C-alpha cells in the first residue's frame, strides 16, 4: 500500500461525500486500511477503559478484560457489515461487501483519533473539566454516525430516506443474526453433549 492509501482516510472523514465516492468509483479505498483502523479502535477502547483518568473512569478494575473489549468491538463491526450487506442486497444496494467494510471502517476513524489523545488528556482533568471529556466523546460519536450514514448512502447509491430505512433494518437484521447464532450455538452444544454422552456410555459398557 502506498502512502496515499494511508492519507486517504483522513481525506474521507473531512470530505465524506467526495471521499466515499472516490473510495467506491476511483478504487482509492483498501480493506486492509479499514482493518488497521478497526484494530486501532480496539486498541483505543482497551486503552480508554484501562487508562482514562480516575475522574472519568468508572470501570471496576476487577472486571476489565482486554479480550472482552476486543470481542465487543470486532464482533459488532462484522455483525453490522454482514447484516447491512444482507439487507442492502435485497434492497437494490449497489455496494459490495468489501465496500461496506471499507465505508464502516473508514467511518470509525474519528473515534480512534479523538479517543486516544482524549484518554491521555483526561488524566489531567479536574472534575469541573470532565464535561468537556464527555462533550468531545459525543462529538466523535456523532461524527462517526454522520460518516456511516454518508458512507452507506454513497456505497449503495441510496437516497437519504432509504439509507435511514436500511440502517434501521440493519439493526433488526443484527438482532436476528444474534438470535440465530445463539440458537445454532445451543443446538450444536446439545448435539455435542449428546454425542459425548453416547461415547461415555459406550466406554463404560464396553
Amino acid at each position: 500500500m502506498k502512502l496515499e492509501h494511508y492519507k486517504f482516510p483522513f481525506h474521507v472523514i473531512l470530505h465524506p461525500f467526495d471521499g466515499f465516492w472516490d473510495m467506491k468509483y476511483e478504487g482509492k479505498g483498501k480493506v486492509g486500511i479499514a482493518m488497521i483502523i478497526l484494530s486501532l479502535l480496539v486498541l483505543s477502547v482497551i486503552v480508554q477503559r484501562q487508562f482514562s483518568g480516575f475522574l472519568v473512569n468508572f470501570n471496576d478494575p476487577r472486571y476489565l478484560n482486554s479480550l472482552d473489549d476486543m470481542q465487543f468491538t470486532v464482533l459488532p463491526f462484522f455483525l453490522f457489515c454482514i447484516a447491512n450487506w444482507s439487507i442492502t442486497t435485497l434492497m437494490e444496494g449497489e455496494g459490495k461487501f468489501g465496500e461496506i467494510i471499507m465505508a464502516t471502517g473508514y467511518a470509525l476513524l474519528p473515534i480512534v483519533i479523538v479517543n486516544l489523545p482524549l484518554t491521555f488528556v483526561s488524566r489531567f482533568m479536574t472534575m469541573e473539566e470532565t464535561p468537556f471529556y464527555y462533550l468531545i466523546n459525543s462529538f466523535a460519536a456523532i461524527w462517526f454516525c454522520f460518516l456511516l450514514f454518508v458512507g452507506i448512502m454513497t456505497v449503495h447509491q441510496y437516497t437519504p430516506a432509504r439509507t435511514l430505512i436500511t440502517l434501521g433494518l440493519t439493526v433488526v437484521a443484527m438482532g436476528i443474526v444474534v438470535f440465530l447464532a445463539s440458537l445454532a450455538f445451543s443446538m450444536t452444544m446439545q448435539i455435542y453433549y449428546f454425542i459425548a454422552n453416547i461415547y461415555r456410555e459406550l466406554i463404560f459398557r464396553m
Partner: protein
Amino acid sequence: MLLMLAGLSLAAATAVPAVFAAAPYEAYTYNYYRDAVPLPAPFLPERSVSGLDLGTGDFKSPNDMFVTEDGYVYVLDSGNKRIIVTDDEWNVIRVISAFDNAGREDTFNNPGGLFVTESKEIYVADTDNGRIVVLTNEGELIRIVSDPQSDILPSGFKFAPVKITVDRANRIFAVARGVFEGLMQFDDKGGFIGYVGTIHVTQSFADRLWLRLATDEQRKRMQLYIPTEFASVDIDHKGFVYATNIDVNSTATIKRLNPSGQDVIKRFGYYPNMGDIRFRSFGNNAGPSRLTDIKVIGGGMYTVLDSFRGRLFTYNDEGELLYAFGGKGTQLGLFNTPVAVERIGSKLAVLDRGKNNIIVFRPTLFGSAVHQATTLHYNGRDAEAVELWKEVLRLNSNYDIAYLGIGKSLLMEKKNKEAMEYFKLGMQRKYYSVAYKRYRREVMQEHFGTMMTLLTVLAVALFSFRFVKRWRMRRTVNREVGTL
C-alpha cells in the same frame, strides 16, 4: 481481653482473614462497588443480662431500654408493667411497678417506650393507657400528658404513644400509633404543639398510571397513599431529633429533624443510609432492613437496629456506613427480636424482646479505633485522627473511610499529591478532584519558567525554520527564473 486484642492485631498484621471464634456473626461494610466487604468484628458480645441475673425475676416482653450518660440503665419491662433501674454494674437500684396518682395507685399498661432526661426524670410512653407518664427518678408522679387537644386532631382521636424522646427544654417528641403526620410534639406543660417531620409520599409514575386507568369503584378500594409511621426516635445533644421509619419503598428511612421539622441528615455516602443495600427482592429473608430503633452514639455517629435481620448499622455524620454486624440466632451475640439499642459508655447494649434479655457488646481494638477516629474527625481534629486511621488500616486495609480520613487530613496540610493517592484508594472522586486541582496548579507554578522558555524556544525555532524554508524557495525560484 488483652489477649484477645493482641490476637486481633496479630491476625490483622499477618493479613490473615480475621475470623473470630468469639463472634457468631460476620461484620461488614459496603465498598464503593456496593459489595459487602468483611471487617474484623467491631464489637464482640460480652455478656447477656436477663431478669434472673438482676434478681428481679424474668423480663416479660420488654419494649424499651434507656441508658443515661452516667451509665444508669432503665429497662421498660412492659409485660410485667414495671421499670427496672440499675447502675452501670448491673446492680438493681429500684423497681418502679406502680406510682401514686392523686392518692390512687396507678400502673402502666403495655408501655412502649421510655426516656430519661439529664435531670433524671423518667418519661414513659404508656401506650395502652393512652398517656405519657412523667416520674421522678424515685418513681413519684410529676405529671401525666394525655388526651391532646387541638383543632388539627380529628374528633375521636385516640392517643397511643409508642416511643418518646425529650429535649433539653422538656419538649416531648412522641411516635404515636396511627399518626401519619409525623412526630407529635408537646410543650413542657404537656400541651400539644403540633407535628414535626412529616414524611412526604410521592406517587410513582406506575401508581399514577394505574389510578388513571382504574374505575371509580376500583379507586375506592385502592389503598390510600399515606406515609408510614415513625418507628423510633432519639435526640442528640444539639437538640436534633433522629427518627427511623419502616418503609419498603423508601431509601430515606433514617431522618434527622431540625427544630423546624425538616430532614437534615447527610446522605453523602455512595449509597443511601438505610441499613442493608443488597438484599433479595423475593423469597426468604427478602426486603430492606426494618429499622426499629436508633441511637445517637456521639461524634456525629448513630446506630440503627434492623429487627428484621437482627443487625446493627453505625453511620458517621456524613451518612457513610462504618460497620454492620449482628444476626439472628440463639448464640450469645445473636438476636431473636431485638427492640432497642443503647450505648453504655463505649459499649453497646441491645434489648431482645424474644429472648427477654439484654446483650452487651464491647468494642474491639478495631471498633474503638474507628469510633475514636470518627469522633476526632467530626470535631475537626483531623491531624490527630490520622494516627488512629493508620491503626485502623493496619487492622483492615480494605477500609475506605480510613483512606478518606487520612486524605482529608493531608488535604488540610496541603500535601496534595499524597492526598490524591488516598482519595483514589478511598474512591472519592470529589475530593480527589480538589486535591488534583491544587496539585496541578502547584506543578504549573513551579515549572512556569521552564515551560515558558520551552514554548518561546519552540516558537522561535518554528519561525526561523519557516523563514529559512521560504528564503530557500525564493532562491530556487529566482534561479529558475534566471535560467529562463
